[in-house]
């Protein structure tokens, strides 16, 4: 029989990283809502899990689905990521609106997820593969492709972030 830990314990263990992941992936305006949606979707699906391995990667996968929803919504509304939060939120969100993260958010979904998980949150490749639902070599490729794209666009964010 599957023995799953209490959901609260799973949430307590991973909520900080899941939130940071979303902060980097969708930015300050949508992170809170996205985080709640992630937790509720996880709670809905939780009893159906067949084992308790890779719970962290499982949460990231759900978070990524919610991040994709946000990005699709933005594309539909044709809004760029320039809807800034109010002053208070700005102070609480040091770098999440940096020019670099703006560029990260423009990456294709899988590359964005790979770069944030690997380079911002230090996720091991074995776990990254589970989170991205792909092989480890494919996960490495996604990180590499994402970083390459960011380097190509590098002159844009370095000039704007020093202004």
């Amino acid at each position, binding site marked *: 029989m599957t*023995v*799953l*830990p*209490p*959901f*609260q*314990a799973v*949430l307590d263990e991973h*909520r*900080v990283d899941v*939130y*940071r992941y979303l*902060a*980097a992936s969708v930015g300050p305006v949508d*992170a*809170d809502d996205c*985080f*709640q949606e992630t*937790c*509720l979707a996880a*709670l*809905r699906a*939780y*009893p159906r899990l067949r084992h308790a391995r890779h719970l962290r990667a499982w949460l990231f996968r759900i978070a990524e689905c919610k991040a994709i929803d946000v990005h699709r919504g933005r594309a539909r509304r044709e809004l760029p990521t320039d809807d800034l939060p109010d002053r208070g939120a700005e102070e*609480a*969100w*040091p*770098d*999440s609106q*940096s020019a*670099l*993260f703006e560029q*990260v958010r423009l990456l294709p979904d899988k590359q964005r997820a790979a*770069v944030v998980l690997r*380079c*911002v949150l*230090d996720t091991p490749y074995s776990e990254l593969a589970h989170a991205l639902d792909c092989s480890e070599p494919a996960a490495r490729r996604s990180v590499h492709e994402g*970083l390459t794209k*960011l*380097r190509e666009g*590098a002159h844009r964010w370095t000039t704007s972030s020093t202004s």
Partner: protein
Amino acid sequence: MDDLEHELKAQRLPSGPPHDTLAGVTERAEREGLVDVAYTTVDSPMGELLLAATPIGLARVAYPINGHDAVLADLARRLSPRVLEAPARLDRARRELDEYFEGRRREFELTLDLSLTKGFSRRVLDATAAIGFGEQLSYRDVARAAGSERAVRAAGNALGANPVPVVVPCHRVLRSGGGLGGYTGGLDNKRFLLGLEGLTV
């Protein structure tokens, strides 16, 4: 690692979800009926008690010596893994317990979910629930009331496994000779509860 990777790592992100965001998760989960087991902890003269309730009613009261994490893991296994810290559902139980410890309440008016116990154990708890404030029965009395006078040891075991001590007052069950017997929360706590009800053993 090159400059870009260093810069990505150096980006400062929020330290975690704000309190309101977390509270919102709990609130929405309750509203959508996703919390199979809600729990909270409350201060008491006997230390921090863990209270847990299903949508049916109060299912668990646990003492510090029971190990709160172990109790929650057990509830996840036996009831449902959808266990969430959602204090609102326990408001009434918390209030009644406070009143009891302050000497302002003699019986509880809480709906219980005793699905963690079955058969004879369940009947032992039902018999125990009927013992009034300041009264006491022997293990044999309780076994008899549960339908099997000779099953004294089984009755003791059932009381030792009482999922809702204090509320189902297993502390009011003593040895026939007047000895204290055992207690799920430790004998000091049994003595404390009996003292609270004006009994000294």
